[in-house]
């Protein structure tokens, strides 16, 4: 609660300062005002004698002038000395106006206005002029005798003086007005300054007031918050002075000590501390310094309802400016639950550790059972695993007995502190697992052992029993499997022999296959080569035929021209020779054309379509008949199905065959040509073209389809010997066959076949 106090102590101080400032400023301004008023009155005081003096100067001089005239005129009642006295008086006033001075009528302060001063100096000069002329006249009158007149010049000098005195009076009035105006301006400025300052101070004060109001509200809120927190918190808060007198205790604190607030405040804090801790706590509290102002401690207390509770305290000291402790604050918290939690955690940790140890033991044991080959090894390991898991490992030992065998980690000692579990194999007790202590130890759950330890021992015994069963079964199985293995080995040897034999056979087969594959590859290569050379041959044939045509045309052309030009001059032999040349070139032209067609048949790609064979035959027949209109030919054309073939090429085939048939029946009066379908193999269509022409000798059948092979002379039947070769070639390209039958003088039959199935190409 120190901080809020500071805030509230600070504000009136500031306020006082501000008020002092305002009052000071007010006084200052008032002083200014008084001063200016004073100056004003001073001015009045100063100028009144000056104005009077101005009048006196004229008055004294006028009196002196008047009396001098009367004295001169002969008035004996007056003394000339009085005249000089008046004139002196007049001069004195003028000097007082310039240099200061005092007489019963007032104090003269000289005026600083330069214009005025010049006027006064002139007046002074005029007075002395007048006195000089008066003295001069007096001396003259004294010699000539009293009663003489005053001359003109004397009066003129006096008038001059009076004029000057008037001027000076006017100047004085002007100067006075100027001064008093200046004073008024100064006064107005001071008043304006005062008003301005008042407004500024007013604004500042207003702002300050508002901020202070806000501060006050904030302070109230802060106090309220602190109070609420302090009152509503379950934490005990208590403040006390150095002597222990409690100055504040919150509600929780009152409840804790089962006292009312009024009872607590004023009582001693130290009396609240349990006696056992009091000395220590007090020592602690008084040891607090500015450098380490707080300290905490925990202690056990017996609550008024008899409960034992744990309490945590923090004591904090507050110091004055000299570092002396003035008060303390003590904050207490009930940590019984935390303490209990810690204890519980400790217990659980211990339990977990025990479990882990046991788990480790069982795990190691299982591992041992699984990985060790013999029971002996397993038992030896397990005996060593048991003691570390028990509560007092140092004095715990174990022993395992199976039949007549005994497994121990150290020589067995018979002690009264032991536990044991039976090893039961296939329902028969065969031995036991024992744990014993070398020394007496505190009584536990059951005898010297924990319930858990008993359960663990039973578990170990069970695992070992199962392991024994398992190992014995395995040994039995091994014996049997050895026998089976022998049997298998014998059979394997037999099998191996058989396999070796079949492998020999196999490798022989593989060799044969290899050979086959090799020859296949060779065949394929040969086929490819053949195809390539065929293509080359075709290209060659085309090129040759093509290039041959040009010179041939030239020969034919020029021979014709020659024939024309020599028709009259050349003899009949010459004419005949030229005709022979013409005919030969013509024939060569046909040869070349046929060769070109043949080569084309080999080179061009097949463009297969479904086409009506009968329709195609009729078309060809019409064309052929057109060229042999004079012939009498009986046609017999059977109905034929559709085929899948290259139309142009098949047309060439049909043309060649039908054209041949027409050609070779030339000598028949009644030619007969049959076209139809002949029986063939499965999936093939066989077409024949039969004629009753000259026929051929079957012994030359091999030559029939060869290129340039002819069975008749050109004289008998024109032709080049390419037509049938082309037929065969085209049919072969359609995967078909060609053959022929004939007999000299009885006609010939030409066959070709086409695969029936529609090929996809």
């Amino acid at each position, binding site marked *: 609660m120190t901080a809020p106090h500071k805030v509230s102590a600070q504000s009136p101080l500031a306020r006082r300062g501000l008020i002092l400032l305002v009052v000071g400023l007010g006084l200052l301004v008032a002083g200014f005002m008084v001063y200016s008023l004073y100056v004003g009155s001073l001015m009045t005081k100063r100028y009144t004698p000056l104005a009077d003096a101005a009048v006196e100067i004229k008055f004294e001089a006028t009196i002196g002038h008047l009396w001098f005239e009367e004295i001169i005129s002969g008035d004996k009642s007056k003394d000339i000395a009085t005249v000089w006295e008046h004139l002196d008086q007049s001069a004195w006033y003028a000097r007082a106006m310039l240099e200061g001075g005092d007489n019963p009528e007032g104090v003269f302060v000289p005026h600083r206005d330069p214009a005025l001063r010049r006027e006064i100096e002139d007046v002074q000069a005029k007075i002395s002029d007048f006195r000089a002329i008066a003295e001069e006249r007096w001396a003259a009158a004294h010699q000539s005798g009293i009663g003489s007149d005053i001359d003109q010049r004397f009066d003129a000098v006096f008038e001059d003086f009076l004029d000057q005195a008037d001027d000076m009076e006017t100047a004085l009035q002007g100067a006075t007005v100027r001064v008093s105006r200046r004073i008024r301006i100064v006064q107005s400025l001071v008043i304006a300054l005062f008003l301005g300052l008042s407004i500024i101070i007013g604004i500042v004060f207003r702002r300050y007031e508002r901020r202070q109001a806000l501060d006050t509200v904030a302070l109230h809120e802060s106090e309220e918050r602190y109070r609420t927190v302090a009152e509503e918190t379950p934490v005990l808060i208590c403040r006390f002075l150095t002597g222990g007198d409690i100055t504040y205790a919150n509600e929780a604190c009152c409840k804790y000590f089962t006292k009312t607030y009024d009872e607590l405040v004023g009582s001693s804090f130290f009396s609240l501390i349990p006696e056992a801790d009091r000395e220590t706590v007090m020592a602690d509290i008084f040891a607090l310094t500015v450098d380490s102002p707080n300290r905490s401690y925990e202690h056990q207390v017996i609550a008024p309802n008899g409960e034992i509770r744990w309490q945590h305290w923090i004591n904090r000291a507050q110091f004055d400016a000299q570092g002396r402790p003035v008060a303390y604050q003590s904050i207490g918290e009930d940590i019984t639950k935390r303490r209990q939690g810690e204890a519980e955690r400790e217990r659980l940790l211990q339990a977990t550790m025990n479990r882990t140890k046991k788990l480790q033991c069982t795990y190691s044991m299982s591992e041992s059972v699984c990985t060790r080959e013999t029971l002996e090894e397993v038992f030896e390991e397990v005996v060593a695993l048991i003691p570390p898991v028990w509560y007092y490992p140092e004095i715990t030992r174990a022993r395992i007995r199976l039949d007549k065998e005994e497994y121990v980690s150290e020589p067995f000692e018979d002690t009264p502190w032991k536990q044991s579990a039976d090893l039961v194999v296939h329902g028969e007790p065969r031995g036991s697992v024992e744990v014993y202590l070398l020394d007496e130890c505190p009584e536990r759950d059951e005898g010297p052992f924990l319930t858990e330890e008993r359960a663990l021992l039973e578990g170990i015994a069970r695992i070992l029993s199962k392991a024994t069963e398992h190992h014995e079964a395995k040994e039995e199985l091994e014996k049997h499997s050895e026998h089976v293995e022998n049997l298998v080995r014998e059979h394997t040897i037999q099998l191996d022999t058989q396999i070796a034999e079949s492998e020999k056979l196999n490798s022989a087969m593989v060799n044969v296959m290899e050979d086959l594959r090799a020859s296949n590859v060779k065949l394929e290569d040969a086929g490819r080569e053949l195809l390539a050379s065929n293509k080359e041959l075709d290209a060659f044939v*085309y090129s040759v035929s*093509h290039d041959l*045509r*040009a010179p*041939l*045309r*030239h020969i*034919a*052309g*020029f*021979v*014709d*021209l020659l024939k024309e030009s020599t028709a009259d001059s050349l003899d009949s032999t010459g004419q005949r020779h030229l005709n022979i040349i013409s005919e030969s*070139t*013509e024939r060569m*032209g046909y040869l070349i*054309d046929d060769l*070109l067609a043949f080569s*084309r048949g080999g080179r*061009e790609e097949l463009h297969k379509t479904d086409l009506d064979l009968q329709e195609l035959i009729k078309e060809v027949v019409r064309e052929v008949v057109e060229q042999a209109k004079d012939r009498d030919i009986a046609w017999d054309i059977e109905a034929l199905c559709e085929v899948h073939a290259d139309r142009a090429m098949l047309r060439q085939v049909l043309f060649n065959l039908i054209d041949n048939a027409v050609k070779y029946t030339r000598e028949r009066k009644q030619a007969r040509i049959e076209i139809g379908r002949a029986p063939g193999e499965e999936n093939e269509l066989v077409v024949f073209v039969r004629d009753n022409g000259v026929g051929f000798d079957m012994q030359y059948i091999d030559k029939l389809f060869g290129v340039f092979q002819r069975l008749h002379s050109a004289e008998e039947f024109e032709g080049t010997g390419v037509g049938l070769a082309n037929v065969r070639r085209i049919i072969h390209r359609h995967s078909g066959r060609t053959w022929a039958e004939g007999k000299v003088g009885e006609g010939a039959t030409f066959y070709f076949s086409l695969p029936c199935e529609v090929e996809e190409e």
Partner: protein
Amino acid sequence: MELRRILLVEDNTHDVELTLTAFKRHNLANEVMLARDGEEALDLLHRRGKFEALPNGNPELILLDLKMPKVDGLEVLQQIRADEKLKLIPVIILTTSREEQDIIRSYELGVNAYVVKPVDFKQFVEAVREIGLFWAVLNEPPPGSQKRSK
């Protein structure tokens, strides 16, 4: 009879002589200009080199051989068809080749006719006559062709 200009593109002198003879028989020889290979034909059509002085105008018909040194007939045809000024000129291939690929390619490139020179001179003369009659007399050439009457 109105006669028009013909450009014969042919490298073989014998063929030139025979063709000109054939034209002569039909009184068309005076209308024939000759280019000895494809390059010369293109120079002529574009007024390049020695043909610079030739007056403007296109021939009404081009007879084009296929197999020629330097630039062959198909290439000449291709260039003619690709040129804005020349593409309308009728072009006839007059060749020895009956090769299908040549025929297809020529038509693809936009030839107007494809004639295989017959071996027989009489037939050849007849063929030339028919060509001359049809293309140089009956046919109406595209606008911009040089006309000449006899």
